[in-house]
């Protein structure tokens, strides 16, 4: 059976309606003493649930899931994705370098993650090549303002807000990859008549790979009890979902 990964037992309740706003947070609410925190992963899931649903139900994504997308739009999406992936590890490294010793478990987690993600921008480049975009065009591409905003925010947040905020970026991107990446890549493959993994290697492989990452991310998030770090992570996940939704919207 799936355990709680060593986290403390939490008694849940739905009766706390003290906040004016509605949302998943109210549905997934921890009870008991005020000192007892909800495990951070569950808190991130609950507090970003509407942002996740806003992403998954955006008309552009719904349409892509239903009908796939034309090759021009797929190229445009991969070009944006390339620049997200290219900056992923530098953002993680910037965050790792700023994380205090007291949260060293996060730093070590990021080291591992950076190692695993190294070179994955090349997968995107290969997929782009498979759909007719030369590597030189990919590297010369100027990303959309939304991609720049996403990357810019993640550097800023790691630098000025809280280095642990990078975990919010990881959460949003891994949710997108592991929950939606599979169906999306299947729709693209079907619409563009792609063979095997050609053209969808990045999306297809991350759909499976990020499932493992998601379980690891849950464990490491649940070690964090610092309020500032927790808030920064939730905010970062919300901003990443928001910007990624815009990126999908404009391609």
């Amino acid at each position, binding site marked *: *059976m*799936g*355990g*709680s*990964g060593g*986290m403390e037992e*939490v008694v*849940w309740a*739905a*009766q706390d*309606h003290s906040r*004016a706003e*509605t*949302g*998943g*947070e*109210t*549905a*997934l609410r921890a009870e008991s003493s005020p000192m007892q925190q909800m*495990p951070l*992963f*569950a808190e991130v*899931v*609950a507090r970003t*649930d*509407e942002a*996740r*649903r806003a992403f*998954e*139900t955006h*008309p552009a*994504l*719904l*349409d892509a*899931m*239903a009908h796939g997308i034309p090759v021009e739009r797929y190229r445009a999406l991969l070009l944006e994705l390339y620049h997200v992936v290219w900056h992923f590890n530098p953002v993680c490294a910037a965050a790792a370098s700023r994380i205090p010793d007291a949260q060293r478990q996060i730093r070590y987690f990021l080291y591992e993650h950076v190692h695993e993600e190294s070179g994955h921008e090349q997968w995107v480049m290969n997929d782009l090549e498979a759909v007719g975009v030369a590597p030189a065009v990919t590297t010369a591409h100027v990303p959309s303002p939304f991609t720049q905003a996403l990357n810019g925010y993640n550097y800023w947040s790691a630098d000025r807000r809280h280095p642990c905020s990078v975990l919010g970026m990881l959460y949003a991107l891994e*949710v997108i990859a*592991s*929950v*939606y990446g*599979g*169906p999306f890549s299947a*729709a693209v493959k079907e619409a563009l008549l792609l063979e095997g993994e050609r053209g969808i290697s990045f999306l297809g492989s991350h759909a*499976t790979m*990020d*499932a493992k990452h*998601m*379980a690891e*991310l*849950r464990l490491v998030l649940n070690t964090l009890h610092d309020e500032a770090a927790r808030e920064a992570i939730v905010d970062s996940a919300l901003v990443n979902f928001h910007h990624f939704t815009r990126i999908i919207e404009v391609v």
Partner: protein
Amino acid sequence: MRSNPPTGVPQLLGRPYKYLRLEWNSELSLLRVRTFVKPIQCYSLAGLAEMQRVLDDITANPGLVRHLVLTSDVTGVFNFGGDLALFVLLVRAQDFDSLRLYGRRCVDLVWWMENAAQRGVHTTVLVQGDTLGGGLESVLPFHKVIFERSAQAGFPEVLFNLFPGMGAWNFTIRKAGFAIANEMILSGTLYTADQLYRRGLVDMVVNDGEGEAALDQAIRTVDPRLRGTLAALQAQRFAAPIPYDSLLSIVDQWAETAMGLTNRDLRLMERLARAQARKAGGADEGAVEELKKLELDTAWGEERTGITAWGDLH
């Protein structure tokens, strides 16, 4: 000076709901809840929280609401049940606690309905579109269940190696008996409104477009004898009780089972989620049609598919 928070009808109707529309009929002391969880009509975390808040407000104002009515404002869909994308996320994260919590929040809703008569509230639900899994579970505890004829319902969870864990067994056994519960839950079959009526899960089937009139008639029929009806319904619950602990144990087992879902199972779940999203995006075909394609059509008792293993039952 701070004003006191509203109570009574203003409290009931004054909340800023995103996914519910509330209507009040003072003649019948009737609260109608219209659901429209956009764009996928399912039990999302936010949708659950809003519904629970409505029920809490009713509890906080005893005697105010005599009739509670639930309907859907989404054409062709009553409720698709659980938030499948959330399930996939939590299973992939191996987050047993959050899955169990989600299940318990659902059980809280059905448990409130189970005890509505004790609160002096008669409950009626009108189903005018498809309702799957948790959507059907949420319907069963209502005192009066009305379906329009084209509505279809079932428990498809077994198709991806799960089972409906928020009251399906308890309420189906009580209403229809053990054999029917076995048939419905273990087959994953979808049923027409008439088939559900014949199995005792639905109290009334009316032609499409006649649901509103049937709803009005049902409530006006019960209203003059409400006290006696509610007392009888309480006694009915004593006669065939559903223990809360049993519901919770089943939720725990549901969450444990979900933890063991394989990639294939999750892909099937994603396929259904994708179909729900397609329908929300304006496509004609949605989750129900996708279910029909899941290579398990032979298990289904649908006249319209032409596969009629259940045909003999008509």
